[in-house]
């Protein structure tokens, strides 16, 4: 053990060593920085290597995370430090406030790594290829994507460039990259973690969550970030339990549903095999696994892309070059309502700024969402999608009357090659096919490592439960993890 570098350890292992004075906070930060300097030029898990990386930088108050550095996705606001959603349009944006989760982390003693992790622009994507800083690579195979949109956070944790990290999950953006990178990713119940300071993609779907090396770290981090926040009207005022207490190695009699709609044609045979084995393992551990049906699963992707793009088109309207971020045609503007549109300097500035500031995928989603909300189309798209969303929710409500949780693959395939799907948005959208439903229904869900393909790429097992039943997920995930070797596998980077 002595030969192990601190950056390769989990948070709970480091906290133990800090407590026993076997290691110093400075050591931890320095080892993490050293590793970043060594491997990140190839991996590109961080958005701004050149900015803010200072040796020996320790922040935070006295708290349970004192001494631990944490990596933060670039869409979570950090006071005074660039938070740009990896988009040109937010060029130079330094929020004058911390997101609630950042405040909580600082209060718990964590050191915030201000270089931020890479992501798909505004979390639009499943591969972290849509970043204005260029793509992040998968630590298991540098030719592959790390998944997305929290690909930077997942890759950093997998490559030991981070102890643990925060991501955000709108349609699978924590779980899918966690699965591709062989780490643990948790999307909490909608309303469990404050969204204040998370730059919104789709407000009714977004949740911040942890990306960690094991389940215990996930619970440790959840203990810090969860809870009602008066600044977020959609956060829910329900007491947060100590999640580390739910980490019991016992799932005897736990009723687990296996949705048949998640084992579809086109699914990678190796992933199917790995998932089947994982389910068998759960059975061996005493769980009662039965096939179930979630009848409206096939509509999840279209419903999601109508609702998420609609909300995104609205949330992104504020990026106009007026107050912050990029302003193309940087000239002072005199506004004249009477002048015709082409003549109007203001509209020219809007167009130039948004044209230059947004990447291709952002533009695609803004156009899709604007269309779906337009007069004459609203009923056929947005309203109809809302109704189907309710049906999808009801599917889950029914199942959770008889089952404690649901187990399924996180993704239909392992990590794909960089560039393989970037020209085909539909195939890209389908990589979230198993993760989107949890967001639509507001459910908590985890992805934990459950095997490696022949090519040495990780696969993830997803466990979902009913709202605010994170404890059941932790119990099932912990039991599985502690009885399998997968979380101990590391990429060679």
């Amino acid at each position, binding site marked *: 053990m002595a030969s192990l570098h601190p950056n390769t350890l989990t948070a709970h292992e480091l906290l133990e060593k800090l407590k026993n004075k076997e290691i110093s906070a400075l050591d931890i930060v320095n080892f993490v920085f050293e590793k970043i300097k060594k491997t990140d030029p190839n991996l590109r898990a961080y958005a701004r290597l050149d900015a803010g990386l200072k040796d020996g930088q320790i922040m935070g108050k006295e708290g349970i995370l004192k001494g631990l550095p944490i990596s933060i996705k670039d869409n979570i606001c950090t006071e005074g430090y660039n938070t740009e959603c990896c988009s040109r349009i937010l060029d130079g944006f330094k929020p004058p406030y911390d997101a609630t989760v950042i405040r909580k982390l600082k209060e718990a003693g964590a050191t915030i790594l201000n270089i931020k992790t890479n992501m798909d622009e505004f979390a639009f994507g499943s591969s972290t290829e849509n970043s204005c800083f260029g793509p992040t690579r998968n630590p298991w195979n540098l030719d592959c994507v790390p998944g997305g949109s929290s690909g930077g956070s997942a890759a950093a944790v997998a490559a030991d460039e981070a102890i643990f990290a925060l991501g955000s999950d709108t349609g699978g953006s924590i779980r899918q990259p966690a699965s591709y990178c062989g780490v643990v990713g948790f999307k909490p119940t909608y309303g469990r973690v404050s969204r204040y300071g998370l730059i*919104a993609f789709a407000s009714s779907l977004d949740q911040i969550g942890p990306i960690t090396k094991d389940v215990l770290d996930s619970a440790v981090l959840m203990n810090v970030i969860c809870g009602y926040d008066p600044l977020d009207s959609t956060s829910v005022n329900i007491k947060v339990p100590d999640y580390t207490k739910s980490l019991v190695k016992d799932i005897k009699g736990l009723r687990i549903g296996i949705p048949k709609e998640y084992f579809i044609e086109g699914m990678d045979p190796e992933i199917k095999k790995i998932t089947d084995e994982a389910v068998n393992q759960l059975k061996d551990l005493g769980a009662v696994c039965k096939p179930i049906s979630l009848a409206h699963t096939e509509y999840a992707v279209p419903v999601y892309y109508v609702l998420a793009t609609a909300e995104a088109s609205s949330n992104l309207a504020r990026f106009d070059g007026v107050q*912050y971020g990029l302003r193309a045609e940087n000239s002072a503007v005199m506004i004249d309502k009477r002048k015709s549109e082409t003549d109007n300097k203001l509209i020219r500035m809007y167009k130039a700024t948004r044209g230059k500031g947004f990447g291709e995928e952002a533009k695609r989603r803004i156009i899709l969402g604007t269309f779906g909300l337009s007069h004459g189309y609203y009923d056929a798209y947005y309203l109809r999608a809302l109704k189907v969303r309710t049906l999808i929710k009801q599917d889950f409500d029914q199942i959770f009357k008889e089952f404690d949780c649901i187990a399924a693959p996180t993704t239909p395939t392992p990590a794909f090659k960089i560039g393989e799907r970037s020209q085909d948005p539909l195939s890209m959208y389908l990589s979230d096919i198993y993760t989107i439903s949890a967001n639509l229904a507001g459910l908590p869900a985890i992805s934990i490592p459950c095997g490696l393909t022949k090519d040495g790429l990780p696969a993830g097992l997803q466990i979902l439960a009913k709202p605010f039943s994170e404890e059941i997920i932790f119990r099932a995930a912990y039991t599985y993890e502690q009885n399998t070797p997968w979380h101990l596998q590391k990429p060679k980077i």
Partner: protein
Amino acid sequence: MEYEPVIGLEVHIQLKTRTKAFCACLTDFGNQPNSQVCPVCLGFPGTLPVLNIIALEYSVKVGLALNCLVQEYTKFDRKHYYYPDLPKNYQISQYELPISKDGFLDINIDGLIKRINIRRAHLEEDAGKLIHKDDLSLVDYNRAGIPLLEIVSDPDMNSPQEAYEYLTKLKSIIEYLDVSDCDMEKGSLRCDANISLRERGSKGLGVKTELKNMNSFKAVKDALSFEIKRQSDLLDDGEKIIQDTRLWNTKELKTLPMRTKEGAKDYRYFPEPDLPPFIISPTKITEIKKDIPELPEVKALRFQKEYGILEYDSRIMVLNKKNSLFAEKCLTVYPDKDKKPVANWLIGPMLSEANSRNCDLPGLDISPKDLIELIGFTQRQEISNLTAKSVLTDMLNSKKTAAEVIKEKNLVQISDASGLENYISDAIKENCAVANDFKNGKENALMFLVGEVMKKSKGKANPKVVQDLLKRRLV
């Protein structure tokens, strides 16, 4: 052809909550630009709105006072349009489920009651303000996020006067509720008007124009009158009305087109995902209802009943809440059973003093007791009404009592014959012809002579006594 105007009004009132609708910034008027802003009302990325419950309660209060159905279940929507004074490029407003709907307001037109239906009243956030300077446009976001209640009437008004009465009544009610300053000059009350013409007697609706930029109720009336003329001239010439938005130009006194509406603007409303729907419980509604003070209409009736005030007088007395409170104090302090003199004084000299000093009755800073004392002098005929009016002006200027002013200026009315003899003789002597006219039966001539005596006595003569003495001398 004879046309009938069809008018609907959209009134925005700024609710005077201490803090903004969705953040904790203050709402004070006139401070340094951008000094009352925070990341939330600036629409910074990552920020979220939190509803100010007081704004919701104020809105319910107005809804109830306007006889609306207050919705137990209400939600917010986003209304999208791009403009630099709108930080998020969408406004948090209410589309599908406004807080209140289906209310009404009764106005008095030539002694007849006319009911104006109110379609809806919904809560939204105000935008910032653009300031144009040289060749630059600057934005002040102090106003952005102040709660606004938009009150939309049905197109039930058929003349500029009706629109004026509606606005006056609406403002009066809202002032009674104490939820807005209703100051058009400061923009805490804004009014847009929709107007179309139709052939008198027909039921259809013509093409409407929307009028903006009126900064007083009188301007609303003037703009509507102008627009009626403009539209009827066009129609008479066989031309079509173009649906557009027009700005009232206070210098040229005409409406000028702002932009043509090519079809309806698409605001792409959808439910605000950052704010869950709100339930206003029946208990809460009852609670708010209890908090509503006596409103002008009811108060006017009570004044008529309790104090025997005429209908017309009572309506004027209650229009402004502070005035009505002052009036009631005077009415109760006044010892006589017949309160008519008090009413006359309040809606006569007192109101005209207030108007000329641009304040309300309490703003004149005269106590009800002092006013009643002054009225007492006239009732005892110690001074004439004419003198009393100037005494009032002196009292207001010098803060002295009526007794002090009258004594200092030696204004006590001359009522005894001996004191008036000389004036009367002089008046008759100087106006022989008029005196003769009266003798020959011309009744009016007497009043002229009374006036002459009043002049000579510098207003101190008791006109009634003068009249009697003149008659006695001339008959």
